[in-house]
């Protein structure tokens, strides 16, 4: 069974009856491995469509959770259940519960490092005082406003205040939480979450290859969410200084948010500032300031100093790239694509009105990036299968466009693997304005293929 990854949560959705015999068939180590490669920092099993489970059935998952936690610091557990199921799980495991329970996926996302929306007003209630405190701390650390009900009566009273809370947490339990460097994208900035004491381990936990490819795809602002960092030592400081110097090659900026220097030598801060790192006390100081975001390159990209040219190996795989994109769009739209012309040059976009675009990077045996430029009508049509209805909501279309490019990236990965070439793909980036796309790739040489879908042009651009 494959997990669906959204907002950093990898969710498995078994259906029907879970007992000792069936549960083991739902989830395998391979399924977990595949999920861990999709930028999830939380692995959950939804019980929404499960009508029956027993202790033997859950044990199969719990054993798998322990295995996961031994190799990767994910938050693991169950979600999407009613009171009856919650009580049953608590009764089964009582004091041996190291996994988490989240009543809904929405509650789980609040605790994920990959969740973009901050500042949620969250009402918390648990009959266990230490759980109430643990949830409040975790939520506060993630930029939310937790309000704790101290008793059931208090909770009932507070719950009556309509519209006062974005999310209400009850019948939930926090087990061991994840502690890896998770990445998410917000306002076209990549946000990494770091916590605890930072030492030379950071170079192991941090996915440098992913970071470098995000730079190559056009991300220019990287924010370290460091609210939960206790302190850092000289090895970690050197690591971040080097990271900042490398980012400067791309005119990219690295920022730290919420890092307290109470237990860290002040000299480290100066050294890091000399390396070009900026410090902010609140996430909103950056993400809420559109002018600053523009200055830091999160809305458009600065000129890239380090240009790389197309190589023979990449161009030789061009048919696979075209196949992946064309097959994906054909599959999603049920319409045929016609290749019109292909040129090696800088990207040329004739009519820049009503266009949306998206880019995705890849790295491994070969590396580079793909940019797709769609007329809005094609983008809408292509996303209908994912959205389920026609919509003019631009954010929803851009979100689905990102998912579509992800599907195309997955298809490309499969097609290339068949020829013995292994790649990984980055998170997709979407652009509502074509000028932003041009700022990232306008100066780069690449292969442009003009395609026609339903009498409308669609541009595929492959570059490095």
């Amino acid at each position, binding site marked *: 069974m494959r997990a*669906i990854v959204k907002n950093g949560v990898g969710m498995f959705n078994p259906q029907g009856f879970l007992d000792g015999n069936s549960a083991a068939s*739902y989830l395998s180590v391979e399924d977990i491995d595949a999920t861990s490669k999709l930028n999830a920092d939380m692995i959950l099993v939804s019980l929404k469509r499960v009508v029956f489970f027993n202790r033997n059935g859950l044990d199969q998952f719990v054993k798998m959770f322990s295995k996961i936690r031994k190799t990767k610091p994910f938050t693991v557990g169950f979600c999407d259940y009613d009171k009856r199921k919650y009580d049953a799980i608590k009764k089964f495991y009582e004091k041996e519960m190291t996994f988490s329970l989240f009543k809904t996926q929405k509650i789980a996302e609040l605790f994920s490092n990959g969740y973009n929306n901050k500042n949620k007003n969250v009402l918390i209630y648990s009959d266990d005082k230490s759980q109430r405190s643990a949830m409040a701390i975790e939520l506060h650390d993630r930029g939310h406003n937790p309000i704790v009900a101290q008793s059931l009566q208090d909770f009932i009273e507070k719950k009556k205040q309509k519209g006062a809370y974005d999310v209400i947490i009850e019948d939930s339990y926090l087990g061991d939480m994840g502690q890896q460097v998770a990445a998410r994208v917000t306002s076209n900035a990549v946000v990494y979450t770091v916590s605890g004491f930072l030492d030379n381990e950071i170079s192991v936990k941090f996915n440098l290859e992913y970071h470098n490819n995000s730079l190559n795809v056009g991300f220019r602002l990287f924010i370290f969410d460091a609210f939960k960092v206790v302190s850092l030592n000289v090895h970690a400081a050197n690591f971040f200084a080097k990271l900042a110097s490398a980012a400067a090659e791309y005119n990219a900026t690295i920022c730290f948010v919420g890092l307290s220097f109470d237990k860290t030598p002040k000299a480290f801060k100066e050294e890091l500032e000399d390396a070009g790192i900026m410090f902010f006390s609140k996430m909103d100081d950056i993400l809420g300031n559109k002018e600053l975001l523009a200055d830091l390159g999160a809305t458009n990209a600065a000129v890239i100093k380090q240009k790389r040219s197309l190589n023979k190996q990449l161009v030789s795989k061009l048919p696979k790239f075209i196949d992946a994109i064309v*097959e994906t769009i*054909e599959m999603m739209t049920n319409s045929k694509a016609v290749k019109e012309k292909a040129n090696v040059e800088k990207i040329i976009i004739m009519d820049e009105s009503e266009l949306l675009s998206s880019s995705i990077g890849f790295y491994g045996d070969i590396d580079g990036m793909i940019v797709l430029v769609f007329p809005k009508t094609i983008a809408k049509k292509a996303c209908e299968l994912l959205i389920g209805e026609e919509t003019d909501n631009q954010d929803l279309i851009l979100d689905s466009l990102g998912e579509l490019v992800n599907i195309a990236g997955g298809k490309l990965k499969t097609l290339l693997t068949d020829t013995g070439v292994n790649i990984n793909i980055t998170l997709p980036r979407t652009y509502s304005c074509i000028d932003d796309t041009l700022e990232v790739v306008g100066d780069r040489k690449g292969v442009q293929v003009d395609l026609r879908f339903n009498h409308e042009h669609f541009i595929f651009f492959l570059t490095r």
Partner: protein
Amino acid sequence: MITKENIEQYIDKIPPAPKVVQETVKLLQQGELVRAANVAKEDLALSSYLRNLVNKPIYGFTNEIKDIGQIFGILGVSRSLQTVYNYLLNILSPDNWEFFKLTKSNFEMFQAELSTSWSKILEYLNVEDKEIESAVTLLPASIVVCEALFKEHKKDVELIRATKDMDLNIILQRLSGYSLFDICEMIAQKWEMDLKIIKLVKASSGKEIDIEEEILEYAKWMHLLLFYILSKPHCIEAGLNDFLEFNVEFIEDIYEEFSKVMGLE
């Protein structure tokens, strides 16, 4: 990926029910067991299917039964009819499964599990209705249809489903406008199956609630039974568990009774 035209072509290619099967069904519906067995004997494939199926351990007969008349006699009218319909669906099922990890033999096993459990439920509900009893045989048609339509697109479906939590029924509906159960209905019409059977199987998708109360009640039992069988390890491993979305709310009010009938802990 899959268009309305693909589906219409697929339906066009489905052969009508063979004459022997039509005649056997007609006689069974009239309660003419002996005459039905004599007709069924003329079709070697049908006779061989009946012998193979009925002698599977799930039917619980200790001695091998070879004679078709004897088979119909032991099964009775309703279950004989059910078995002949199972044969009809078996003609449609592929020799080599590609989308689902199934074989001809374990698909037959799946049919048999559904049929015997359905009989157990109807016995509990005290229902003696040939059409209601036979309806369960059309249910696996949704799986055969999925196999036929999606086998060329297995990897594409995996990619879509890694992005969005969508069952095959929704993907098909969004691409073509037809649901799996619409296609089952078209097959059933082609095979001239009773309208009651068609209505019940469509309602068992858990999506159609605007139907007669009696049919709705049986549809809940059928929906829950389908997922009870689909939760067995061999079905999960075959990829059958998530081809359709299980609607827990739909069956909530009958769950306790179902647990009793099936002897769940």
